[in-house]
């Protein structure tokens, strides 16, 4: 029982980061119908920015906002340079564009910074724990969960209360209709990329805190987690993305605990395969979104 609760908290901590990443993926999917394989590169770029800042003696309190800013700016740049030019192209074209960017960013860092893993100091409190009865809770997990809740609340407010939020929700609910209503405007798409970048930035702070390093290929894991979680949630659904993130975090922790020794290394493959099965037997994901074609 104690172990289960411990796992639950651990899973929620992980899941909160995934939820933020997945929400960013879903927001962009909503306005462009693009499965963004380049999403993880925001963390690569901000990881190197963090590394540079640490080299200049910055502390985590300064680096954290820097990560968010770099992530937002990077996402806007990527949109401006590449995605804005394939808007309205086939899904095939958009998908491969994001796939190309994913590799391009990694390769540029490989070329100019090198393949070496660059480490930086984790904050001192990252391994601290406190006890609630028999359960030991990580301070880190607690902070992650609280920040994620606050971020999601703010995001929800933006989505519910503003014109911009309405456009994004409309686009996510019915892409074609929203486009006909003029939602597919530069402003909304750029806003979606900015929001997605901010969410990835906040997730990135914790991702980098825990990892304590960055390398040219460090974007691949956050990208996979974000994309997988968004897929579990049904892609078009913003609420689904959050649920998908939490579900993925919990599933990972549980699988790691229950799978026998060798198979534990397979966690990612197993999760991936489970999601593929979900697509085969329930193509809409956990939160079903109708994508009926108009005839």
């Amino acid at each position, binding site marked *: 029982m104690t172990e289960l609760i411990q796992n639950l908290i651990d899973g929620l901590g992980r899941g909160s980061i995934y939820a933020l990443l997945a929400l960013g993926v879903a927001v962009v999917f909503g306005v462009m119908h693009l499965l963004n394989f380049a999403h993880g590169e925001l963390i690569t770029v901000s990881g190197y920015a963090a590394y540079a800042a640490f080299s200049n003696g910055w502390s985590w309190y300064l680096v954290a906002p820097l990560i968010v800013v770099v992530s937002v700016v990077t996402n806007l740049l990527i949109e401006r340079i590449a995605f804005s030019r394939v808007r309205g192209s086939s899904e095939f074209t958009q998908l491969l564009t994001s796939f190309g960017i994913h590799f391009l960013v990694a390769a540029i860092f490989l070329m100019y910074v090198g393949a070496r893993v660059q480490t930086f100091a984790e904050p001192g409190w990252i391994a601290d724990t406190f006890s609630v009865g028999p359960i030991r809770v990580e301070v880190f997990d607690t902070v992650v969960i609280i920040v994620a809740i606050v971020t999601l609340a703010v995001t929800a407010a933006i989505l519910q209360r503003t014109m911009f939020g309405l456009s994004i929700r409309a686009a996510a609910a019915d892409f074609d209709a929203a486009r006909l209503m003029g939602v597919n405007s530069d402003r909304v798409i750029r806003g979606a990329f900015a929001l997605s970048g901010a969410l990835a930035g906040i997730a990135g702070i914790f991702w980098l805190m825990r990892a304590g390093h960055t390398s040219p290929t460090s974007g691949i894991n956050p990208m996979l987690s974000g994309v997988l979680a968004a897929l579990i949630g049904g892609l078009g659904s913003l609420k689904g993305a959050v649920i998908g993130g939490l579900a993925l975090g919990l599933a990972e922790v549980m699988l790691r605990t229950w799978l026998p020794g060798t198979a534990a290394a397979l966690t990612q*493959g197993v999760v991936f395969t489970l999601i593929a099965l979900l697509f085969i037997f329930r193509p809409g994901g956990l939160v079903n979104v109708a994508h009926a074609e108009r005839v």
Partner: protein
Amino acid sequence: MGAWTRSRRREAGLLFPDLRRDVAFPLAGAVVLFAAFVGAGLLYTLLVEGASADKLITAMFIDAIMVIGIQIYVGNTGVFSFGHIGFGAVAGYAFAIFAIAPDDKYTRIPNAPWGLADVEMGPLPATAVALGITLMVAVVVGIGLGRSGARSGSVAATVITLALLFFTHEVAASWNELTGGERAGLTFGIGDTLQTRTPVYLALFAAIVLALLFARSSIGRLNHAAREDNLAARAMGINPVVQQTIALLLSVAVVSVAASLRVYEIGSLLPEFFFFQYTLLTLVMLVVGGRNGVTGALLGVAIITAVRETARRMGSDGYEVFGLGLDGNLDWVFREGLPTVLLGLAMVVFMIWRPNGVVDDWEVDAWLSRRFTHRQPPGAAVEAPEPEALDLSASGVTVEFGGFRALDGASIEVSNREIVGLIGPNGAGKTTLVNVMTGMVDPTNGVVHLGEMGLTSEPSHAIARAGLVRTFQNLRLFSSLTVRENVEVAALMASVHRNGGTRADVDAIVAGAGLWDQRNRRAGQLDYGNSRRLELARAAAAAPAFLLLDEPTSGMSDTESLAMVESVRRMAAAVGAGVLVIDHDLNFITGICDRVYCLDQGRMIAIGTPDEVQADPAVKAAYLGEAAQQGENSS
């Protein structure tokens, strides 16, 4: 369907509609492509001597087989696959585990399960075993893809194939007893690796022949239709899942051979050999040249190999080309990592400016075939003999979307000797009724019958094969196929599933629709009127018992829609089909219809001759009143 059935054409098998165009020219094309590609490679080894140049060219030939393998699936079906390198991993490991000599296996994987460490097998049988195992995996993945409703650009296909790639990679990386794990991997003994290029040449030539023949086969053509428009293809009677699965198996077979050769040539195997990097490399090769054709695939392999090799050489110390290199002042460009940057860049740049690649779907054999074949315009079509009487009926059809009732107990009956109109104001439920009849919307209540046969909630392609073929309000042509190919695909489907092997005369239908001069243009380039005519011709070529036309004159001028009356009559008579036509244009409806039904708010409010329906007060109230007023205002 007697009128358009051609007897003078050589009887070809169902797989290849036209032996000259679909077999002879592709074989000639394969020889040309093979000679050009291999010739270019060998020329390089003559100019740049040395073992490393030889190795580079062998690797290029093997990559070419791999890329052609991927092209067979991705190019023909349009379904995007990240997973082909995952199939490659399965084949590569199967090959290595069977082909490596026991002595070498005892040092690397002595505890391999099922006594695999003791197996001794030559490279050829090992390739066959690898092929068999990989095909079994492909069957499972194919069933999954089919179930998920994979179509061009679908997310499900991306996810399923990506899952395969990751799963195989993780298994390879962690099943140490079998695969040697992530670090040690598997190795061949020195001298046990590929010593001659002969098997590579054979496999490459076979792959080119297979890919070209497949693209020209009926299955390939049906795949192209589904690639262009999945829904329209199903409405023509094509079941994309079957066609895609065949493409997948063929494609995986080629990929398996390529993977075996790759492992055999490199002489060792690690999980990362068949993972993201190689996926990126092969996909960039595929899209740079043009994924829809074999010529494009080979061109892409050659271009990317050349670019990568140049970048690699310039990035290594002290090497110069035209005075540029690491020693020059451009060393911020020419440095380690440049080849990968170029791959990523090529992918992005091509997707933005030339998503269909350098040569798009241009193909040697198609070019040769067009150049050396001269088609004569066919004579006029004769009317089909009167077919046996058949009735199409829908009764008590109710459809609810959420709380909204689009149809409320609507019934309609059409015989195959008449042309029946379906009118009604916007939102009355006309298209929904046609959607129900063609299996695109499941009714909440009600049944559809064709003669004695129940069609309710059957899949669209089965309904089309039973004889109900429709057109769409918002044109759905197979836009990158030519006009003639659009019609031919429908005729192919009909010859397999409706006419027991007899094929409609495609040329006569194209000419009959007034599209003879446009026959080699892509459907996407036609103007609006011609597009509408092509959609009608394509539907007629499917040899339907009933044509369901959804607003065939929408967006047409008065003269054009009058001409459409003639076209619809002629097509229906030539095929011997009954017609159910939805339209707003009353002149068109009264000009063509024997009987008219009027729908309003999901219910049938009137049935009768065009004059009777026009005079009906309920119809006037619901529909004509509005239209009449508009008419008065505009005149």
